[in-house]
Structure formats: structure tokens, C-alpha cells
């Protein structure tokens, strides 16, 4: 098993953001974390990536506990954070080189991985332009390339198609499908269409709890309005 999440809990002050969430993701799976705003998707992903420390529970990547050995676990994760923060003054080429080297790629060998990630994310045309001059779609793909540059076996992508036009969305979905053959991929999304299109499993989260964990088809078949019906029936709307 590539990713094991067990009893994950996170509290911000008196509010419980993530409440005893457990799930696994293995190679070949594209798992979609689905839920309304404030449901706990991003907080869960941040704990998996090692940005937040869980109050309780554990995240294991290839059996490595993220809280106990964050550095070793992080080396195996490709992470696209929410909002896609980038170093605006850098060019994508410099940014990818920086991320690749920080992720352990030898400086003398960095060109190959950088060019492969740039090609996979289709950002070749913008490699030497400052990031702050790029469109939202290009910037999103720079973030995706940074998540791929060290060829990780686990990809954690927080809203990977946010800000992309339909053509770019389709290209990213195809890319995720190709990457999933050998890897475990966890994505968060608001888009039911995206879950149907690329996810092999959907985990529905509401107010920090898992309320459904099944294939998109099985979930859709249980409700008259399909996946949208499942979403409406199982979630209570945006959390405070």
C-alpha cells in the first residue's frame, strides 16, 4: 500500500477540521477527495504532505510515518498545494531546477527530470518567462510540473484543474490517467464531472468525516441524480 491514512484528526481552536479520517490509496488508483468548501479536504492533504501535523492518527507513505520521519516520507510525495503558490520572480525553469535539487536530484543530473516534467505538464513554451507574467493555466501547470519533477510514486494534488480552460483540463486529466498506471494519486476537487472522468474511487467528506468511500459509478447508482444526488444527500453544505 502506498498511502495509508488512519484515524487522522485535526482541530483549529474549538473547530474540528478533520475528524478520524481513514483510507488507503494504492498504485493504479486515482482517488478523489470530494466535499463542500470547508469539509476538510485541504487540511487532510496538508497533513499527508507533512505541512500540518495531525493532532491524532497517522499518515504512512510506503510505511513511513510522515509525522515521525517527514523528510524521508516527503521525498516520495509529489504535492500540488491549494492555490498553487509559486516563486513569482523566478522562471519555471529556475523554479523546477530549485525544486528538483531540493528534492534530492543531483545538480549535474537535473536537466533531464526538469525537461521531462516540463514536457509532461506542457509548459515548454513558457520555461524562460518569469512566472508572474504567465496565465493562471500556465502557472497551474508549472505547479504540476514541480509535483512531478522527482518522479514520485505518490501524487497529492489539491484541485489540479482549478483555473484551467476546458482544453487544459482535459490535457491534465489525460496526464493524470497516464501517471496513475504506476502511481497512487490523490486529488481533491469540487467537480463531480472530474471525479466521474478520472477517479477510480471517490471519498466523500463532510465536516471532517468520511461519509462515503466507493467507486464513482457505485456511488452514482445509489441515488436518482447520480453523483450529484449522492453529493447533495450526503453533505450538509459549506462548513463554517
Amino acid at each position, binding site marked *: 500500500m502506498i498511502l495509508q491514512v488512519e484515524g487522522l484528526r*485535526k482541530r*483549529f481552536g474549538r473547530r474540528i477540521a478533520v475528524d478520524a479520517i481513514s483510507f488507503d490509496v494504492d498504485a493504479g488508483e486515482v482517488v478523489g477527495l470530494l466535499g463542500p468548501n470547508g469539509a476538510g479536504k485541504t*487540511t487532510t492533504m*496538508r497533513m499527508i*504532505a*507533512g*505541512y*500540518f*501535523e495531525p493532532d491524532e492518527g497517522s499518515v504512512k507513505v510506503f510505511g513511513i510515518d510522515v509525522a515521525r520521519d*517527514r*523528510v*524521508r*516520507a*516527503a*521525498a516520495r*510525495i509529489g*504535492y500540488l*498545494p491549494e*492555490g498553487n*503558490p*509559486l*516563486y*513569482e*520572480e*523566478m522562471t519555471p525553469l*529556475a523554479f523546477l531546477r*530549485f*525544486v528538483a535539487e*531540493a*528534492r*534530492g536530484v543531483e545538480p549535474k543530473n537535473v536537466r533531464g527530470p526538469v525537461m521531462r516534467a516540463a514536457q509532461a505538464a506542457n509548459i515548454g513554451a513558457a520555461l524562460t518567462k518569469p512566472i508572474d507574467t504567465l496565465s493562471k493555466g500556465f502557472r497551474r501547470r508549472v505547479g504540476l510540473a*514541480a509535483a512531478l519533477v522527482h518522479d514520485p510514486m505518490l501524487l497529492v494534488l489539491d484541485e489540479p484543474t482549478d483555473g484551467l480552460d476546458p482544453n487544459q483540463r482535459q490535457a491534465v486529466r489525460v496526464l493524470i490517467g497516464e501517471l496513475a498506471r504506476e502511481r497512487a494519486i490523490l486529488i481533491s476537487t469540487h467537480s463531480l464531472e472530474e471525479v466521474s472522468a478520472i477517479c477510480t474511487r471517490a471519498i466523500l467528506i463532510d465536516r471532517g468525516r468520511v461519509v462515503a468511500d466507493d467507486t464513482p459509478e457505485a456511488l452514482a447508482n445509489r441515488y436518482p441524480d447520480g453523483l450529484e444526488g449522492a453529493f447533495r444527500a450526503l453533505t450538509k453544505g459549506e462548513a463554517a
Partner: protein
Amino acid sequence: MLAYATTPTAYVFVAVLVAALGMFTFQAGRFFELGRADLSAFFAFHPWLFMIFMPAIAMRLWAEEARSGALETLLTLPMPTWALVAGKFLAAWAVAALALALTFPLWITVNILGHPDNAAIAAGYFVSLLMAGGYLAIGSAMSAVSASQVVALVLAVAVAFVFTAAGTPLVLNFVNGWAGAQTASMIADLSALNHFEGAARGVVEIRSLFYFLTLIAMFLSFTALAVEARREG
């Protein structure tokens, strides 16, 4: 380091700091009127100028990352927090070293005008660089506790001012009269001004080296704790 190299901010700071050091040396320090072949007029203003300029160099180290969200990218890299803190600090220290290196013409000038003690001047530069590290570490720590560069700058200058002004006669005379000579001596020992005084004359004291290294270690540790605290969410 790349962030400093790719933005004009560092170059502006370096240029302004070098200009300020030159101006203070020649105008306020009366370099030529003193008629001495040394750089004491140059070194005399380092604590006061560094107190402002080093926090300005360090203010974006963490605050800008927190504001832009890039801190999440940074803290999810497979690197221990101490390595990130040390890396950013060394990048800022390299900028400070560049500024000091660009004052090299002054050293050449005193050699043309007379026969200075070059070992004493080298010692002054060495301790000045250490002192710059101390003020940068303060700047780094204050940058780590704020998401605003301006707030980080104000906090850092305030803390740096305490570590500088504590050694002034005004403060020490006040403390002496109020709490006694022993307390005044303790306060003086906490001041960068006091520890740099000897170096400005070319005397390197072990206790002063220890002081600046401790200042760096203490505030970098504080930086690491503040950065780690962000993992609490």
C-alpha cells in the same frame, strides 16, 4: 540565494548600505580630518547602520513566503526545518558579505594615504561580518513570526535597537544609577555595540566572537521554532 539574485531588492539594499557606510565614514566620521591611517571612522557606524539594514535584508525571508503561500511548498520539501532556516540565513549573510566586500576601496584608500595595521582592519571586517550575522538572525526570527514584511522589519529593528542601545553611555549610566554597577555591566555585555568596540580598533576578543555566535544561534533557533509552529496550523 536565487530569490535575492533574481529580485532588484538585494541589489538596492547593497548599494544603499555601501553608500551609507561611505557617507557616514567621510561626513560624520570625518575620515580625512582625523588624519589617521585606519578605518575606525568606518567601523564606528556599523552597529547603528546594521541595526536597520540587516533587518531590511532579512525581512522577506519568511514573511514573504507566508504571505504568498510559498511556505507550504517550502515546508513540504524533504528538508529538515533547520536546513531551511540555515539556508535562508546564509543567503542573506552572503548579501551582507557582498556589501562589506564592496567597501574594499576604503581599505585601499587608507593604504595609499598611510601605513595602516592591515591585520587590525581585517579583524574589524571579520567581526563586522559576524555582527551582521547577529542582526540578520534577529531579522530572520522576526520575519518568521509575521506574515507582513513591514511588521517584521519594525519588530526586528526594535529588537536590534535593544541589543545595540543597551551599550550606550546613556542607558548604562541610567541603569548604573538605578540598579547598580553590576547590573549595568551585565546590560553592557548584552550589547553588540560593546562587543564591537574592540573589533573597530582591531582587537578581536574571544568573548565577543562567542557573543555574536550565540546571538546568531539563539535567534536562528527561535526562527526554527517559529517556522515549526506554523505546522500546528
